[in-house]
């Protein structure tokens, strides 16, 4: 390019409409705050569970929580709902972003109009939200999955990944770090041979699992870092002749996986409690909307039963390390 | 009212039927007695097919009643008519291209075997038996798609016979058949008559009517004109009843001096359709192209206009060679083409009159592709007056017009382009008597203005009355050229049947 706008000549997006206001750690949580809860899609069991936590928090805080959202988890489908929340002059938005970038412009506009934005589970562009409530650090999630697959396979052989959509922000971040972990000499016995995508669709994941096993006769293990994927994969494994020969682990909910850890298809899997995630995100939203915090690193806020949390780098709050579920402890969890 | 001796099998009484503004039937009465073959006669558009469709339960009459065996019957659809024992061979074959011939014959009545399954073997055997009766060799298992018109007609006939119906209605069954098949068909009709069935027979060939039928009914403009026994009647007498006036008045072709050759066709061939067709048409001339249905006349016209491709041969317009295979090129060279099927090919019936008239002149009416103002309306108004098109509004859909007026719209569409060569294919098919004369006057006028006209027509009197020269096609070849002075009905008919050259 000679005179046009190219990647080299352009300035990247302007920085966020900064939080100039100072935090007042002693500010009371306002009553009757209007909060919108916006999951990736309305018919997703994981988010339905998280919504329970959000509801509990809202009740405790005396806020008005409204759940809404699109029926499909495509990149742009949430934007309408973000705009609507802004239009309805909601005080805060609790959001799990389908696409970090696609929601950014409308989030910025909404914040410009005074709405506070908390992302949870899946972040939006850092300059488009105030706080991100992370279920666990990317590093923790990746590490625990690598640890589980090493346990299950004895640390030797070919493994593959069954992920959600090719564009899923979370999964891609975890997979990147898992690759780094696997490259370490300690894990040199494991060889990642393939990554396939089940699109967070039960049927597709099911069939992709089959395909993986056929394509790689020497496969020893599969990691599925998505609740939909691992459940579908476990169901396939449990009835196929590969049961017990191919290990499966990843991120799953106890309710979906209970049968499979008990029948030995899966040795262990991990997850955080989505109810707590929704609960924490709602508390963060209320704290922001009440001026207790601004999202700056080092600020602290109280999150009801969960205790006190500190905002870390880039406005991130971490719920805590993921829980590993095995047949011994899985019955203690209901979500 | 002349009633047959026995109580009629079927009696249509005072039947009227309109399609929008077109009164297709007005107070028509028709009685069919067991054991008789009854001719239904009338000009194109007289209402014969409409009457038949009323009898078949396709149309519900607006007024009048239908009695079967003296009992009033109400048909809510063709199935009811079938159940009452009425079998119909429609004018246009209506076959299922994807189904086998046998299934076409036995649609909905396939022979069954255990478990209510269709017995294909029996069905094929029955079909073959029927065809043998008719003297046809057709494979009952082959799909109906791709059958020639004549074969399609034979399948329709077989279908009607397979019923053992008490009333068999045949709407121009012989139009596409050769003499041999017609003979077979007649033998079958005789058999049906002996079994006590009534046969209603439509044909424009009066000799067939006289050899087959005992009684006849004549319709004119949708009205009942005459019913009676055929004994003592003459063909001329019947024609007078159908037409209502002397024939000569109908065809006012003015004599003109033929000018330069405007359309020159040489050695045109489309494999399997027509072969080695060569002829010229001069300015001021009307050349008639005659032949039996299926002889390939329309196909020649389509090829000249560029709708179909050709395998060999050339066409020149006004001395300049024409690029074949492109209607746009043909139009640019000055050819206009009024196709035979006006509803499918000539018109966009859902669109308004003005849109249709302007459809072939869009280039001329538009300015850089844009249509401003009322150019289309003005063009249509102009030609509606010139051709006295009767339409409620020029914005009304063409489908609301009567057949004759629809035909005039097609003519207007092409005449408004001022073509130097005009090809008309069956220009008066399905239009009423008065309009027909008007169309003839128009064609004649055009010729006198120096247009070269090629007229394809299946109506012999029309060809004989209008054409300066008659070309006759038989099975895809041009077999004879007859000057106006020498053209007689007999000579053209013989040539069309492939028996020309007996005398010159």
């Amino acid at each position: 390019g000679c005179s046009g706008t190219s990647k080299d000549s352009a300035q990247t997006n302007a920085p966020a409409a900064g939080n100039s206001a100072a935090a007042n750690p002693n500010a009371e949580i306002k009553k009757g705050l209007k909060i919108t809860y916006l999951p990736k899609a309305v018919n997703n069991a994981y988010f339905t569970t998280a919504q329970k936590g959000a509801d509990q928090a809202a009740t405790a805080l005396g806020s008005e929580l409204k759940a809404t959202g699109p029926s499909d988890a495509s990149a742009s489908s949430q934007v309408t709902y973000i705009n609507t929340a802004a239009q309805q002059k909601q005080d805060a938005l609790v959001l799990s972003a389908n696409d970090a970038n696609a929601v950014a412009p409308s989030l910025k506009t909404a914040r410009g109009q005074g709405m506070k934005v908390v992302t949870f589970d899946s972040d939006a562009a850092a300059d488009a939200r105030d706080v991100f409530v992370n279920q666990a650090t990317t590093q923790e999630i990746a590490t625990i999955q690598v640890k589980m697959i090493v346990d299950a396979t004895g640390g030797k052989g070919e493994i593959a990944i069954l992920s959600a959509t090719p564009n899923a922000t979370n999964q891609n971040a975890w997979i990147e770090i898992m690759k780094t972990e696997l490259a370490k000499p300690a894990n040199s016995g494991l060889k990642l041979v393939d990554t396939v995508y089940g699109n967070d669709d039960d049927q597709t994941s099911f069939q992709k699992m089959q395909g993986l096993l056929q394509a790689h006769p020497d496969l020893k293990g599969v990691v599925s870092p998505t609740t939909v994927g691992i459940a579908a994969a476990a169901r396939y494994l449990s009835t196929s002749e590969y049961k017990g020969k191919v290990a499966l682990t990843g991120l799953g909910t106890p309710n979906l996986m209970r049968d499979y850890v008990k029948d030995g298809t899966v040795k262990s899997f991990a997850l955080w409690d989505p109810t707590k995630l929704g609960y924490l995100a709602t508390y963060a939203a209320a704290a922001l909307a009440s001026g207790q915090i601004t999202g700056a690193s080092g600020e602290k806020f109280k999150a009801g039963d969960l205790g006190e949390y500190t905002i870390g780098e880039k406005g991130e709050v971490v719920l805590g390390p993921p829980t590993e579920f095995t047949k011994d402890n899985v019955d203690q969890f209901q979500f | 009212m002349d009633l047959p001796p026995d109580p009629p099998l079927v009696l249509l009484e005072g039947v009227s039927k309109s399609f929008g503004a077109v009164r297709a039937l007005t107070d028509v009465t028709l009685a069919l007695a067991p054991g008789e073959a009854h001719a239904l006669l009338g000009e194109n558009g007289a209402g014969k097919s409409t009457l038949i469709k009323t009898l078949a339960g396709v149309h519900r009459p607006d007024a009048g009643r239908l009695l079967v065996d003296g009992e009033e019957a109400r048909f809510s659809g063709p199935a009811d008519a079938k159940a009452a024992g009425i079998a119909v061979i429609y004018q246009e074959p209506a076959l299922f291209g994807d189904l086998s011939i046998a299934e076409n014959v036995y649609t909905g009545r396939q022979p069954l075997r255990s478990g209510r399954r269709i017995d294909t073997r029996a069905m094929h055997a029955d079909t073959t038996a029927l065809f043998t009766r008719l003297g046809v060799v057709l494979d009952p298992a082959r799909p109906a798609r791709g059958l020639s018109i004549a074969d399609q007609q034979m399948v329709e006939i077989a279908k009607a016979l397979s019923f053992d119906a008490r009333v068999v209605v045949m709407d121009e069954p012989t139009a596409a058949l050769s003499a041999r098949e017609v003979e077979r068909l007649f033998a079958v009709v005789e058999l049906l008559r002996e079994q006590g069935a009534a046969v209603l027979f439509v044909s424009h060939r009066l000799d067939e009517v006289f050899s087959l039928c005992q009684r006849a009914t004549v319709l004119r403009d949708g009205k009942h004109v005459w019913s009676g026994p055929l004994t003592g009647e003459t063909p001329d007498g019947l024609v007078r009843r159908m037409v209502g006036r002397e024939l000569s008045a109908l065809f006012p072709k003015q004599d003109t001096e033929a000018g330069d050759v405007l359309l020159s066709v040489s050695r045109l061939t489309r494999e399997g359709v027509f072969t080695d067709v060569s002829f010229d048409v001069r300015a001021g001339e009307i050349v008639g192209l005659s032949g039996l249905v299926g002889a390939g006349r329309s196909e020649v016209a389509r090829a000249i206009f560029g709708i179909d491709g050709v395998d060999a041969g050339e066409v020149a317009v006004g001395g300049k060679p024409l690029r074949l295979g492109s209607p746009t090129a043909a139009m640019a060279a000055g050819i206009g083409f009024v196709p035979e099927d006006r509803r499918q090919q000539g018109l966009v019936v859902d669109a308004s009159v003005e849109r249709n008239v302007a459809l072939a002149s869009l280039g001329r009416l538009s300015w850089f592709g844009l249509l401003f103002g009322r150019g289309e309306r003005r063009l249509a108004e102009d030609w509606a007056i010139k051709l006295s098109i009767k339409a409620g509004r020029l914005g009304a859909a063409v489908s609301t017009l009567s057949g004759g007026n629809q035909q005039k719209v097609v003519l207007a569409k092409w005449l408004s382009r001022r073509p130097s060569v005009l090809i008309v294919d069956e220009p008066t098919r399905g239009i009423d008597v008065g309009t027909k004369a008007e169309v003839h006057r128009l064609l004649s006028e055009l010729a006198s203005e120096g247009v070269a006209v090629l007229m394809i027509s299946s109506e012999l009197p029309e060809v004989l009355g209008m054409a300066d020269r008659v070309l006759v096609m038989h099975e895809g070849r041009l077999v004879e050229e007859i000057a106006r002075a020498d053209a007689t009905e007999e000579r053209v008919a013989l040539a069309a049947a492939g028996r020309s050259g007996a005398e010159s």
Partner: protein
Amino acid sequence: MAERLRGFARWETALVVLLVLVAVVGQARTGGDFLDGGNLFYLGLDIGEVALIALPLTLVVVAGEIDLSVASVLGLSSAVMGELWNAGWTIEAIMPTVIVLGAVCGLVNGLLVTRLGLPSLAVTIGTLALYRGLALVVLGDGAVADFPSNFTQFGTTPVPGTWLPYPIVLCAVLAVGFAITLHASSFGRSVFAIGSNEEGARFSGIRVKRVKLLLFVLTGAMAALAGIVYTFRFSSARADNGVGLELAVVAAVLLGGVSIFGGRGSLGGVLAGVLLLGGLRNVLILDDVSTEVLTVVTGLLLLVSVLAPSLTARIRSTSTGRRSP
């Protein structure tokens, strides 16, 4: 048939009445939020791409064909845009390239339909998968989001001093062009003629195949343009952009009174259809009506759009004792 025509004319009137109704009721139910400038801006953004694609698709459907691959072309153009931007191309060079690419996608559809005589429904179900697949091949799981803000702002800010989004302004300008093309040009007359009677059109010297080919090419190019708008609006080039949008566009076109069999329809009706679907969605979401109701309402509107004209036509034809075919 005339009744049918009048019925359709009336359907367009009915659409406008429905639109007004939605606006009035929406305004009341949402406490004035609906007709607020900010909300209208969002509404405009939301319908932008659908409207852009609906313009050429109207012509395609009027000509008796259909193109289901539009959303995939949108996705492919978005993916290519991202890839070219990553490769260091300038936006000024990327935009025409992407539009040409869309036109080529349309050309492929058009050639398969006109040269091989394949049904467009089947062809474009195939290219729906093909083009989306190519988008994935081009950009994979990546997302390109660092487009310069002086371009992305066209998708995120209104025209200064108004609440009008830029895509809507673009769409309005193009709509005038398309309306003139369809309703006041010889090309448009050909399109209608082809849709009502293809054979008749051919016998009138209309180059049926060429017209259809052109329509598919145009649709591809417009879908690519919609892809550019989409990419700037979300500042995000991704292979899965616009998944499933084809149904929304087809629904809007049909709701606008265009006959799926071709030959009937108007661009005004389609724009009203786009507005009605978008407006209704907007009102319902503002009014906190659930997603499921939204989906049902969309479907019911479609059913009404075909049943209403057909039923009125039938009632008339029975009163004149006539059977429709």
